[in-house]
């Protein structure tokens, strides 16, 4: 059935969850005809290969048989890891249920980056804002870690580069990149400054900014590879901003103890709010990472890296990491869920694996069970949380699809487990 060209489509392919796309039939997959970006074009352009069906050890199987095989595998496991979790709200609800049922652990494919923010939230908190506030109020935008448009392509377009703002037409937002500058072709409305610096040393710079703002004596002559005068200039601008915002994408903070750098940044924002308004914007939400964290949190009290056992749920942001659980053998089965991106395949491991994957996924090694699943917002309806952890948007089914949703596939496994006991 050819999909009709439709406006007002919500895009599930990054944490901005834009709801203004026009999507129609393409030569392969679907084509974005308005308001897209390269990431959206690739995501909607994926073809769900109609001939792909569930497999057990490589052999074609029905969904019911594949679910039963997965259930047997889980029944034999002590501590299954339900990982990947590239899914929407319904998929996350089903994953939580299955984790509770099997005594499993929940982690997300973006967990390593996500916990850098979660550690800060648990330890000291933050002051943050959301996309529409930035669009209308922001007069100084700092990108800690540099350009983020490869991960969030329409970020500027949808915030500071939007043509109108609520509080006066002459609002001009200055942008400062700490690290990599803007990509070629990105045009920004106001003055742009690039402070070329070492992202891995930004923690130092944030500490220095805190000291400068507090008027404390400073010994350092430079931080993160940029001279003191540059940081003094930035401190002055931050203090003078009416509504400053500092945005960062945790995956860019990929160095040991990066959470401490993020924490210093968040404390810097708190300092600024004694006298002016300033906010952080932790960017995330891609592949459903914020969605899965939110659902698990509200149901059980613990988000990512929650584990379920006889004593009730627990959480360990370090110990319950996918890589560690698989390498240590602590996890003895893996359910890998990836419904948005066929390239996000399970990590190499020796544990029996069930993959609920995008239908176009090609796997480096054949898992014990493979169940192709639909993509929320393409093959079936769903819900996804945006980067700001506030807005959850509905996703529509854009084409007729026989593929089960992640929730349906996980529930089938759960029901088979229930029936087998």
């Amino acid at each position, binding site marked *: 059935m050819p999909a009709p060209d439709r406006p007002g489509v919500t895009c599930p392919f990054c944490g901005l969850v834009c709801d203004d796309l026009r999507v129609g039939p393409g030569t392969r997959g679907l084509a974005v005809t308005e308001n897209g970006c390269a990431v959206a074009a690739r995501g909607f352009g994926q073809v769900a290969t109609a001939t792909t069906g569930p497999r057990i050890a490589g052999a074609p199987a029905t969904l019911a048989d594949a679910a039963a095989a997965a259930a047997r595998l889980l029944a034999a496991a002590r501590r299954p890891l339900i990982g990947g979790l590239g899914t929407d709200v319904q998929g996350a609800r089903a994953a939580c249920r299955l984790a509770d049922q099997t005594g499993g652990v929940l982690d997300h494919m973006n967990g390593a980056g996500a916990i850098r923010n979660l550690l800060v939230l648990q330890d000291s908190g933050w002051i943050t804002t959301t996309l*529409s506030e930035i669009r209308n109020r922001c007069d100084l935008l700092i990108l800690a870690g540099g350009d983020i448009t490869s991960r969030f392509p329409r970020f500027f377009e949808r915030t500071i580069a939007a043509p109108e703002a609520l509080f006066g037409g002459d609002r001009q937002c200055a942008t400062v990149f700490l690290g990599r500058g803007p990509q070629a072709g990105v045009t920004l409305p106001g003055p742009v400054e690039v402070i070329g610096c070492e992202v891995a040393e930004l923690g130092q710079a944030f500490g220095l900014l805190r000291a400068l703002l507090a008027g404390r004596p400073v010994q350092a002559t430079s931080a993160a590879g940029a001279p003191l005068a540059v940081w003094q200039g930035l401190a002055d601008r931050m203090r003078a901003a009416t509504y400053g915002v500092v945005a960062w994408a945790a995956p860019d903070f990929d160095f040991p103890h990066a959470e401490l750098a993020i924490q210093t940044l968040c404390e810097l924002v708190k300092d600024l709010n004694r006298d002016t308004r300033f906010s952080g914007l932790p960017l995330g939400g891609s592949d459903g990472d914020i969605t899965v964290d939110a659902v698990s949190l509200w149901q059980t009290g613990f988000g990512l890296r929650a584990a379920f056992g006889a004593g009730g749920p627990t959480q360990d942001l370090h110990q319950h990491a996918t890589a560690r659980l698989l390498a240590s053998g602590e996890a003895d089965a893996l359910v890998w869920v990836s419904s948005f991106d066929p390239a996000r395949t399970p990590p190499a491991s020796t544990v029996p694996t069930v993959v609920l994957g995008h239908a176009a996924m090609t796997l480096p090694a054949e898992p014990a069970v493979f169940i192709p699943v639909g993509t929320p917002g393409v093959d079936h309806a769903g819900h996804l949380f945006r980067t700001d952890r506030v807005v959850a948007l509905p996703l529509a089914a854009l084409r007729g699809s026989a593929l089960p949703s992640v929730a349906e596939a996980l529930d089938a496994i759960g029901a088979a487990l229930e029936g087998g006991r």
Partner: protein
Amino acid sequence: MLIRLAGGRVYDPAHGINGEIRDVWVRDGHIVATPGPDAPIDQTYDLTGRVVMAGAIDMHTHIGGGKLNIARAMLPEDHRRDPRPRTALTRGSCGHAAPGTLATGYRYAEMGYTACFEPAILPVNARQAHLEMGDTPLVDKGGYVMLGSDDFLLRLMASGAEQRLINDYVGWTLNATRCIGIKVVNPGGISAFKFNQRRFELDEAHPFYGVTPRDILRVLSRAVHELGVPHPLHVHSSNLGLPGNYPTTLGTIDAAEGLPIHLTHIQFHSYGAEGDRKFSSAAARIAEKVNSTPNASCDVGQILFGQTVTASGDNMTQHRNAGLASPKKFVVMDIECDAGCGVLPFKYRDQNFVNALQWAIGLEIFLLVDDPWRVFLTTDHPNGAPFTTYPHLIRLLMDKTFRNERLGLIHADAKALSTLASIDREYSLYEIAILTRAAPARLLGIPDIGHLGAGATADITVYRDEPDRERMFTAPEYVFKDGRLVVRDGKVVQVTWGRYHMVAPAYDRGIERRLEEHFARYQTMRADSLRISDDEMAAFGHGGELRTHPCRGGTP
């Protein structure tokens, strides 16, 4: 299926029944009149010596939505101390001050509650709030949607828009967000904070829009009234927590200009600034005002000592209090030109003068407001204390000796400044049934809950009549939800998902074009994306019924 609940002592204030021994009959989920002698009875419960009430209703409890999930994320230590392991019937969950939704539903039901209303739903966050409430088992749910600091309303008001347009916007918002009432939090103050204002007085002009909190209260209470929404405007007043804030509260009541108004967690708004510490009780003045203003009602927001977390849309106040957080962490957010929020863990201590006096002030209000139909039993969960403290609070109200013992334990100066010891009033079971059943149902405009008359939904709680009222209200012997036994001896024996209560007032659809245009020009989502469909609600709520209650004036 006909069930006879035989011979219990029944408290049903909606019908004036005050402790009469009588039978309650349930057929297919509803309460029915006494059937003829030949009716075949499927099941009989002998309730001799038991106390029978309708299921309890919490009309103001923060159980779902973004700020609660932030609180959960911030408080792993809270969850670790209070696990709720999986059983054959129930799923694993945890948390004391900010429990998971599963634990929330189980525990409310285990205390005899069968309906809970989330009081602070941001329009842009409504979908999350409903998702969370959908995952809250056993109890009925509903919510109040927050307006008053959203730029769309403030712009309308600043442009001198007619009341009619504001009504349309309020009507659209209630329909789109699937709520049952309108809440306003620190009117205009959440917006003013975004302009770096740190306090916002009732008659102060907004730094950008020029409108005052009093203007906002006037137009919103009028909109709610003219749309025929049964629940009055639900107001979290300006200047929460500030010493000397009680005149603001009196002024807030007057701002409704005689229309119905509900003042929430009024305890936090009943402070004088007298004495050496410039902090005193104004409970008597507030109670006197409520007593003499028939259009006003309030819930208390009682504080109880111990660890909790405060979660509020009032980011201005929460930021001001951030230094008081315990443990030392907080989150403050500006949200989508719509609202904001602030979350900070808090420990109320009986040896802290201010906390001790807050405790006394709450109890004074309970005991000094004469009409139990206009004062509601809340702790503003989790802001004053977690909802699991309700049985303790009920004992404080019902048992003067116990109350005075407790009063003896608090900070001596606070005790000396409180009039609590001189108040003899003890609430009766009948009055408790008003506060926690009959009155909330009436204030919400839900005709078939909160009472035991024929036609009511069979949400029924049966208690052992124990002299220790805290024990009694902690673990009811039976709780029936829609006629089904869901709790036995304080433990869940069956899991159901409850229904959803909302209103859908009529409005002129012309407002939709304006909204679409406003959202396209200034927001980062389409106005249409805000609207939550029936299908979504059904999926969120595990297929539970959606019930739209009528507005006055014949609208649906």
